């Protein structure tokens, strides 16, 4: 049994990408559900997990298709990661878009950010569109794009962890290995997503939010936490008979 340093490094990288992705996803926590804050009206961890795990489902399907039909090459790896990323991006964009429909057509508020005066992407003036007693509402374009990027990182990170775990055993068709890698990827995802969301205190508007400057701390924490998970998980996957 070999403990491959590259595998451990890549799993650690995957974990850090998950932590980074969480910082991009615009969530307003409980206040956003009452249109009191900009972003999607749910918790950081849960939205990131919903997106990342959708990506994991896509990546698992793609990996199974590629790895069981022959040798698994680097271009296959990129394809699996891209598949996971797109799965997560579809989930997060659909969620943000439908959420937006509810804010606009049901609550009757324009999407607006309270953290910046002008939307950095469209240049729209923001502050005068904030209704009284709130800190913004809905998902303005900058947050929407940020969320899409968050889905990208989350999806790539989760898929990377899964693929690396699968590659250790090199038995892509064994249901035990698949299930073990799937549940470990879920576990690593949750550890990193929760650490990242502790870093931002549960709410963030996207990459334009001042809280985004805290991202290096989260990366360090996620690197350490994922490294430990990787060191533990790699011998397990190698030891499954």
């Amino acid at each position: 049994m070999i403990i491959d340093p590259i595998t451990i490094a890549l799993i650690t990288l995957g974990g850090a990408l998950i932590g980074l992705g969480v910082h991009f996803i615009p969530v307003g926590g409980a206040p956003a559900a009452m249109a009191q804050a900009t972003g999607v009206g749910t918790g950081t961890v849960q939205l990131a997990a919903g997106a990342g795990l959708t990506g994991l489902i896509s990546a698992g399907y793609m990996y199974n298709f590629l790895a069981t039909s022959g040798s698994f090459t680097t271009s296959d790896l990129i394809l699996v990661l891209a598949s996971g990323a797109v799965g997560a991006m579809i989930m997060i964009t659909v969620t943000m878009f439908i959420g937006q429909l509810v804010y606009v057509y049901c609550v009757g508020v324009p999407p607006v950010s309270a953290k910046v005066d002008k939307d950095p992407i469209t240049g729209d003036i923001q502050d005068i569109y904030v209704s009284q007693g709130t800190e913004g509402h809905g998902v303005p374009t900058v947050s929407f794009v940020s969320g899409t990027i968050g889905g990208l990182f989350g999806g790539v990170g989760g898929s990377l962890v899964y693929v690396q775990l699968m590659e250790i055993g090199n038995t892509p068709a064994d249901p035990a290995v698949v299930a073990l890698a799937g549940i470990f990827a879920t576990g690593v995802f949750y550890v990193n997503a929760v650490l990242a969301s502790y870093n931002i205190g549960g709410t963030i508007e996207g990459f334009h939010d001042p809280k985004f400057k805290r991202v290096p701390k989260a990366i360090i924490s996620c690197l350490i936490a994922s490294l430990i998970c990787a060191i533990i998980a790699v011998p397990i996957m190698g030891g499954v008979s």
Partner: protein
Amino acid sequence: MIDPITGLGLVALMGALATIAGAAEDLESDVGSQSNPNSQVQLAAQMDFPHRIFNKAISGEPPAYGLWCAAGATVASVLLAQNMSVIFAIAIGSFVGAILLGLYSVTAHMGRTTSQKRFKQPIYMDMVIGHLPPIMGHGYIAVFCIVSFSYIMDHMLGHPFPLPLLAFLWGITAGAIGSSTGDVHYGAEREFQNQPFGSGLNAAQSGNIVRKAESGLRNGMDNVWACAKFGGPVTGLALGFTVFFDNWRSTVFSGMNAVIAGLIIVLILILANRLVEVQARKAYGPYKDEEGGTEA
């Protein structure tokens, strides 16, 4: 691989099941009041607004739905291993999931209300008994549909994950979508119909939820009646889109083309969002004049 036409049919069926699941999931969380909007129900009693609304603080919706779906799928897999027919196995599994949901709802509502003793919020037993069947009924539909499309994915489209794991992951996604989309209708609009339409909830009004209905006192059944008109269906649309688009692209296209197709869907959604944003800004206009609008 199955042939593309059958594959597309299965993907369409999955999308339809997911749409029903999403709608039922959101409506279940409106009857019982779960997730973020429930913070206002919790706060109401504290602000001297006692109420007759169910306080279903089980946990966030994603882990909760992960549990119901994983439990349903576990029971279904056990029954499938005993050679029971697929529909019956999933139906019985989902029933177990719905019973779990009911039992967790009871402890959440009664526990939270008891812990508010000093705010004099009574526990109404007729409410507990009256709300449980709709909660479990909506939950049953959601779990049944999620486990069913997980089964299609697992046994017919050849996904490698075992059924309970797949249903668990889709349950988390369904809960995440439900708490992000439809719950806003309940939280920002239905709970606060006493506030002027067309603005977010003023933080000063937190906890001042609507407690009286068209006749009598408002409860979860009145809330779900309203949310079924918009919040529920769009949540269904969101989960349906997610499941359908994600599987459609990998069924119709293969390799890199599937990724490109997915990226095009994402781009279209970004543009659509921009259109909605522009339209909303034009239709509603700013809350303040451009000159006096420096403070947020």
